[in-house]
């Protein structure tokens, strides 16, 4: 709460500094105007105000950020140095528990129970250090504010290029924002590679990538009893579900796109297109529920009538529903691509006497094929990475099977199962989630890059 208060004060200082800078610069401007010398003013008063506000608060904010980052660590180190010898020797969770207890005692959260002498002493010390650190922070931050305000206010004069300076600040903020996307990717890769390497210190990569049994067991203390972490059953399950989805979605999506792009009257097209695209906006958990409650039992009873043994939760159920979900991905992308095929190609074919369907099949589709295959690849990457539908409807049984009527498990399902509740990130049972994640990330990355390259090249071809 106290940090929030400091931030509020800094925001108030910011408005005040802005007004100060603007006032000083306005005064200078009106003096210059009286002297009929308006040319001499480089920047407008609000630029000066913004610059003063920036220098008055930005360093202070940076200090505050640094302080809130380092002070807990520093306080803990000081307290640990103060602890009795045998306790300071402890490491990891035990030490953390002691520190948490001391901080609770210091903040009067602990009532009742008998406190050991060293606990009371440590808590007292903790409180003192905390107070000093807080006072130091307030002093530093107010010093930074005062110094920044003083220096930048003194610099306000007609020649100061305040606008250019502010524009540099703005540009820096813009650049910083656009690096967040890069940092996210780096964060994804680094965190997953790190944990995956830790996983491979338990299980050899050969056993992981080529193992045919998935039986991770439960994480046990000491880890004497290790399970088997074979990726293949999960990979096959993933591909099985994704294939069923594509088998459902490609014909429906592509034919819909062709009809809407080539045949449909404009009114029908403008009504049907957004309705189909609704399918893309529905949360996947809703599809999962739909699959579990409606589609699964329906398919199972269909199987009964045809004498097939279809499980209610199976690769087929998950795949069919996932196929429904990706119809709009394929149809909208294909629609875009079909409308980009130049009219001249169509006219040429029609002029030679081909019927419309012949034109589409023999001229438009071959011309659009690269783009459409890009769209299919994008849809495939969606299908491979989809989670909630398979969590609910694929049956979660990690066995190596190519029968879509059986229950399967996929990589995404297993990630969810392995990383649940209180994970301590030290057992292979939870670390395997990162190895699976990295595999999944690589697969989708390759699919995406290839798809994007194909689509981009297609666009350039007909632009």
């Amino acid at each position, binding site marked *: 709460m106290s940090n929030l208060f400091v931030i509020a004060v800094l925001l108030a200082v910011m408005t005040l500094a802005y007004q100060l800078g603007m006032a000083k610069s306005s005064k200078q401007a009106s003096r210059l105007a009286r002297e009929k010398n308006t040319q001499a003013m480089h920047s407008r008063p609000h630029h000066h105000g913004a610059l003063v506000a920036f220098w008055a608060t930005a360093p202070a904010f940076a200090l505050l950020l640094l302080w809130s980052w380092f002070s807990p660590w520093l306080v803990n180190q000081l307290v640990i140095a103060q602890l009795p010898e045998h306790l300071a020797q402890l490491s990891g969770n035990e030490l953390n528990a002691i520190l948490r207890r001391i901080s609770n005692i210091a903040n009067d959260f602990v009532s009742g129970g008998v406190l050991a002498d060293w606990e009371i002493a440590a808590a007292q010390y903790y409180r003192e250090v905390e107070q000093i650190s807080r006072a130091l922070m307030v002093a530093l931050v107010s010093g930074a504010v005062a110094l920044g305000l003083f220096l930048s206010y003194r610099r306000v004069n007609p020649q100061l290029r305040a606008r250019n300076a502010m524009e540099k600040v*703005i*540009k820096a903020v*813009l*650049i910083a*924002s*656009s690096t*967040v*996307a*890069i940092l*996210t990717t780096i*964060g*994804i890769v680094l*965190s*997953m590679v790190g944990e995956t390497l830790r996983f491979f210190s338990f299980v050899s990569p050969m056993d992981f990538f080529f193992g045919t049994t998935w039986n991770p067991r439960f994480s046990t203390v000491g880890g004497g009893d290790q399970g088997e972490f074979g990726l293949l059953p999960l990979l096959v399950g993933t591909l099985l579900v994704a294939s069923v989805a594509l088998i459902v979605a490609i014909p*429906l*999506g592509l*034919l*819909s796109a*062709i*009809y809407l792009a*080539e*045949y449909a009257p404009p009114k029908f097209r403008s009504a049907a297109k957004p309705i*189909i695209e*609704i*399918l893309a*906006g*529905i*949360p996947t*958990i*809703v599809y999962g529920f*739909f699959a*579990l*409650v*409606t589609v699964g039992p329906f398919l199972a009873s269909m199987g009964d009538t045809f004498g097939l043994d279809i499980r209610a939760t199976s690769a087929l159920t998950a795949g069919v529903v996932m196929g*429904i979900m990706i*119809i709009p991905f394929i*149809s909208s992308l294909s629609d875009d691509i079909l409308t980009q095929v130049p009219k001249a190609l169509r006219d040429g074919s029609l002029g030679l*006497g*081909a*019927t*419309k*369907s012949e*034109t589409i099949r023999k001229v438009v589709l071959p011309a659009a094929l690269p783009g459409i295959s890009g769209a299919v690849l994008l849809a495939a990457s969606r299908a491979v*990475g989809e*989670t*909630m539908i398979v969590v*609910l409807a694929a049956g979660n049984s990690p066995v190596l099977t190519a029968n879509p009527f059986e229950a399967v498990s996929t990589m*995404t399902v297993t*990630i*969810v199962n392995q990383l649940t*509740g*209180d*994970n301590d990130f030290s057992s292979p049972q939870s670390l395997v*989630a*990162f190895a699976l994640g990295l595999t999944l*990330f690589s697969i*989708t*990355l390759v699919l*995406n890059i290839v798809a*994007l390259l194909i689509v981009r090249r297609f666009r350039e071809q007909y632009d």
Partner: protein
Amino acid sequence: MNQQKNATQAESTTGASGMAAQSDVQAKVTASLKRRRRKEKIFRGVGLGSVLISLTLVLILFINIFSKGVPAFWQTSFEMDIYFDPAVITIADKPEQQPGETFADFDDRLQAWETELGFVNFNRLMTDAVAPLLPDFERSQTRFIMQMITSGEAHALRNMVMEDPSIIGETKTLRLLTSANVDVWLKGNIDRDLPDSRQQLPAVVRDWADYLYAEGHIQNRFSTALFMNPDSRSSLASAGLAGAFIGSFYMMLIVIFLAIPMGVAAAIYLEEFAPKNKITDVIEVNINNLAAVPSIIFGLLGAAVFINWFNLPMSAPVVGGLVLSLMTLPTVIIATRATLRAVPPSIRSGALGLGASKTQTVFHHVLPLAIPGILTGSILGVAQALGETAPLLLIGMKSFVASIPETPFDQSTALPVQIYLWQGNELRNFFEARTSAAIIVLLMLMMTLNGIAIWLRKKLEVRW
């Protein structure tokens, strides 16, 4: 149209020549034309068919969810006169803060009083109210009555007394939710012909429920429990979405204040300022890829970075918000870039020509024109984040939380995660409908967001 005209022309010219040698060809052409036209029709029909199938699938999905979920907004409830019997609620006066008493002392006394109140048998008030309504009721059957009322109502009565002890001794007409099993029985969501051993309620309770329903003591009324209560495991009939809703609300706030400004800033830089070189090319490819990375990967990132490294609390909306922000960022960037690209260069040239700096051009002239598109894209991004489940499961949001989070750092669930939790509840007969109702709430929120986006686009769109 075109090729039909061509075809008829071709026919008429061959027909006009009328030579015997050509009649053979003509016959062939007519035959093949017939075949080709049939193929054309089939192809067209297949196309139309797949559009219709897709539309039907949308329809089936919605009809299915709505037909299951809408009845769950109405719950069976008792309307009865509860006598707050002083003989049952034997408790001292509610303590008040004495002059000179410290707050801590007063708080201790108040808590002692509240604890004492917790021991009061509030079920007795309800059984006393219901028993007279039942025909040939025997005292030994008292325990069955409580199977008809959901257990959360005893807490509701206790809270009423806690807030205003003066109601002791009064009679109030209250609406109390029936238990989930009674709701299932009365709505016919369980097969009424099942043998006793497979019914969830004893025969006597089922008969009572039917009787009370016929007499009008139990009614099927619109219930606000679904909206006002947090999740509950002990009192299933009063489990609600309030906690999940607030959790989702906090996360969306974080997404709105983090992802949208950062995404827009990044898009402005990449589209307006960045030089065209290798680095910006890499950033561009990277952003396009990030938009297609499976959402569960962002969950792994959140678990490893925010929870394991930064030690942020598990299951907290603040972590969920951060993860969803990173996930929404590429969507916002891509949408914003597309809108900025659509602003004609003449606007920029005009501003630059009049002496504006690059920054002034962008912020005073280009950005205001792009705002409708940015808003639309951002709202769609937020709607997508609202429905996302998988990454939240990995940061611990699938734990059961029976309270409404007060700050973004408290434990909480989110709307889609609540749906996930409810679909797995053992009492399928009751929770299938309730899950569908939760889905309806989620879909309605998303549709509202999408509707706003469409409306904004229609209202503010500028065609160049």
